[in-house]
């Protein structure tokens, strides 16, 4: 018997029905409760979770499969007590609660979120429909000073990043121009549901097109900064030492702050080292870029010697990813599969890591997937 037939559960029967019409299992699924083997919430240690991309059925990552990369222990944020303070280089600092936030006009958009340290064929990447309040409108309501140039975003999670640094809240600094982008949000919903707790409930920053570290989770404070504001939690905590692009050319080291997501594609299936019977198999995966639309994905089954064009199964929706597929006629033997994306500006995903790079971020080269076919 299908279980759903008997689960119209509304236990708040002392008052009027609250959850009318929805069956409980459907509701639990809707609210992301049906976790697929993912560890529990309220973790004691920083979480580092992601699910294989092959588990994504359509074009969107379900809330229970959203990747998690924490720096500190997940904070115990109470919904009723949560507030977001906007202050710093402003004329009218203010604070708003969850109810105030969600009742403001909101924007929905598809966006990819990728960890800057996601490995070449890694799964620390998710895409779906976000909803939130425009960060620009929230800042504007505080009447920023004319000389405000950047925004410090602080989460409710805190800890010590380095031995020589004090325990401080997680924080990032984002240029005011980026915060004023129409797409920059304080997000409180994902795929039409409240954010999962481990993904920043009740609200987080969201900078579509940028790597995930700037999209501060459990957002609790926004402080506008002037050029002269140097002593922030961002600097004191040592966060300024992380998430930098380090290149070395002729012995000279250059350091720049990471921001936009690099052009990338991944093979979701087959997974590495999979054994396959000979025959036709549908190879598939995802492709995305922080700045431009995906135009094409090519697939190779001979380590990049030859390439064939894959079919784009979904259109690039805003800043979301594209799902692609390719019917591969697998012949007996060992194969090395690769995918390679191109964007609307004619950029191609690199075949190899830039040898001048000395950091471990923006790992977007075409990664080989080994497959043996019988």
């Amino acid at each position, binding site marked *: 018997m299908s279980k759903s037939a*008997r689960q119209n*559960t509304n*236990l708040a029967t002392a008052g009027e029905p609250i*959850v009318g019409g929805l069956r409980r299992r459907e509701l639990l699924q809707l609210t992301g409760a049906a976790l697929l083997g993912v560890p529990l*919430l309220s973790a004691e240690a920083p979480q580092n979770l992601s699910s294989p991309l092959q588990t994504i059925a359509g074009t969107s990552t379900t*809330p229970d499969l959203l990747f998690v990369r924490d720096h500190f222990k997940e904070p115990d944020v109470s919904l009723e007590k949560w507030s977001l303070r906007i202050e710093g280089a402003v004329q009218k600092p203010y604070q708003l609660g969850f109810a105030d936030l969600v*009742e403001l006009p909101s924007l929905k958009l598809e966006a990819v979120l990728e960890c800057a340290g996601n490995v070449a064929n890694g799964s620390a990447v998710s895409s779906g429909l976000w909803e939130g309040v425009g960060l620009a409108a929230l800042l504007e309501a505080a009447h920023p000073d004319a000389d405000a140039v950047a925004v410090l975003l602080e989460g409710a999670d805190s800890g010590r990043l380095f031995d020589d640094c004090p325990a401080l809240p997680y924080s990032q600094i984002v240029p005011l121009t980026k915060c004023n982008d129409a797409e920059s949000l304080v997000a409180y*919903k994902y795929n039409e549901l409240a954010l999962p*707790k481990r993904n920043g409930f009740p609200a987080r920053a969201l900078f579509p097109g940028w790597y995930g570290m700037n999209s501060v989770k459990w957002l609790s404070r926004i402080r506008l900064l002037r050029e002269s504001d140097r002593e922030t939690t961002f600097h004191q905590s040592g966060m300024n030492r992380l998430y930098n692009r380090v290149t070395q050319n002729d012995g000279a080291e250059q350091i720049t702050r990471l921001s936009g997501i690099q052009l990338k594609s991944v093979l979701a299936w087959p997974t590495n080292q999979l054994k396959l019977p000979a025959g036709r198999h549908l190879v598939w995966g995802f492709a995305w870029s922080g700045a431009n639309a995906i135009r094409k994905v090519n697939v190779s089954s001979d380590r990049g010697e030859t390439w064939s064009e894959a079919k784009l199964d979904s259109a690039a929706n805003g800043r979301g990813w594209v799902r692609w597929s390719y019917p591969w006629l697998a012949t007996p033997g060992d194969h090395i599969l690769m995918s390679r994306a191109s964007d609307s500006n004619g950029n191609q995903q690199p075949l190899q890591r830039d040898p001048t790079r000395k950091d471990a971020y923006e790992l977007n080269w075409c990664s080989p997937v080994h497959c043996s076919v019988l």
Partner: protein
Amino acid sequence: MSLIGVRRFIAACSESAAMKGTIALVFCCTLAIAADCNTQLNPQQKLAEFKRLDAAAETAMQQHRPSEAIELYAQAVCLVPNSARGFYGFGVAEAAAGRFLQAREAFRMSDQLQPTTGMPLLMQLRVNYSLQDIDALKANLREAAERFPQDAELHSALARFLAEKNLFVLALAESIRSQQTANDTNTKLQLAVLENTVGAYDDALRQALSLEQRTDAPKEMRGAAAGVAGLSYESLHNSEQGVHYLQEAIDLDPSQENSYLALADLLEQMQKYTAAVKVLEQGRRYLPESRAILLALGADLVRAERYQEGINALRALLREAPDTAEAYIALADAARRMGDPSEELAALRQLERVSPDYPMLHVLIARCLLNKEPADYAQILHELAIAAKRNPTDPEVFFLQGKAYTGLERYDEAASALQHSIELRPLDPGPYYQLARVYQKLGKGEAARQQFERVKYLESNAVK
């Protein structure tokens, strides 16, 4: 109405603070043209006439004649343009007639004429929902928060309305506002339910457990709180606590059908079918009329291998509610487990009669027919042809086709169907094995060996 009358009416409207906007002015003009009000009456006569029109309009509304009510209210507010009640009734009539833009304007007028009550604002919000104008709906919520910050009842009513419309996050926001001013148990319970609904399980648990422990609260309330706690624990994958609190919900308030169903469901997930049966039997004693409990009990008796009792329960249910599709599925399940394909087929045919579009129905029938002796392959292929038409990418359909053709010794067709099944689901060893046997029948020894090798290969594959 004469032109002079129209001008007077518009002038009266314009004096009202409500009439500043163009839309409102247009609305007023519409009223003026629609209504033929007698401006010659003295104030007392106007009031008497207003009361008569108002009563007639109410009667029209009660008798589901909103168009007539609209006309009567139009005349009423034409006579007394500063009547909040008149505009409120007018808005209700317009909304009932599905004229939501006009209804919104009428409620706006009513609100501005009598800004001390939240009802017109609540009605504007309902109309905005009907218009799917969520930005305007949110503006209503902000206005309610600003103008009625202490009105817990209004915010609670807003929360209920929004929850009914599945706008759970907004409902939660209003419930939080309500809780901030009214710290009563009803509000706390509403908040706990909504927190659980949106996935704020820790918050839901905090609220629900504090309520459940309040011995001064009514048992029904504590039972509902225990139920919320049970569901939140379940969502947090703490099944043992989930069971504990759902049982607590039943103990505190045995009259709630959903508590039995939720607990039995959780026990099913834990594969504790005997315990689930016990819970549902308890539910039957308290709620003997509940068909949902009877259905669940029948299915769980089957799962607990008490087949005949399960069948009896399901048949009892079908005597009362012969269209219950899930009961036929459970009956078919019982028959299959008892090794009785004829009974299984009978149950599935009854299901076909009451629910011909039931998902995978024809695959289930074909699978059942394959187990019957002698197998009716023509019928099986007929069922599978229907299934393939409905879902041409279901590999199971072609796998079963392969088996049916094999039974008919039509090996080439069997091989073709199995190859198609493999294309659709290349990592399932079943079709390879079946294909190997078909190749053997065709005398293709090498091809058969290759397929057997692939079966072994796939079975050794650490597919994630």
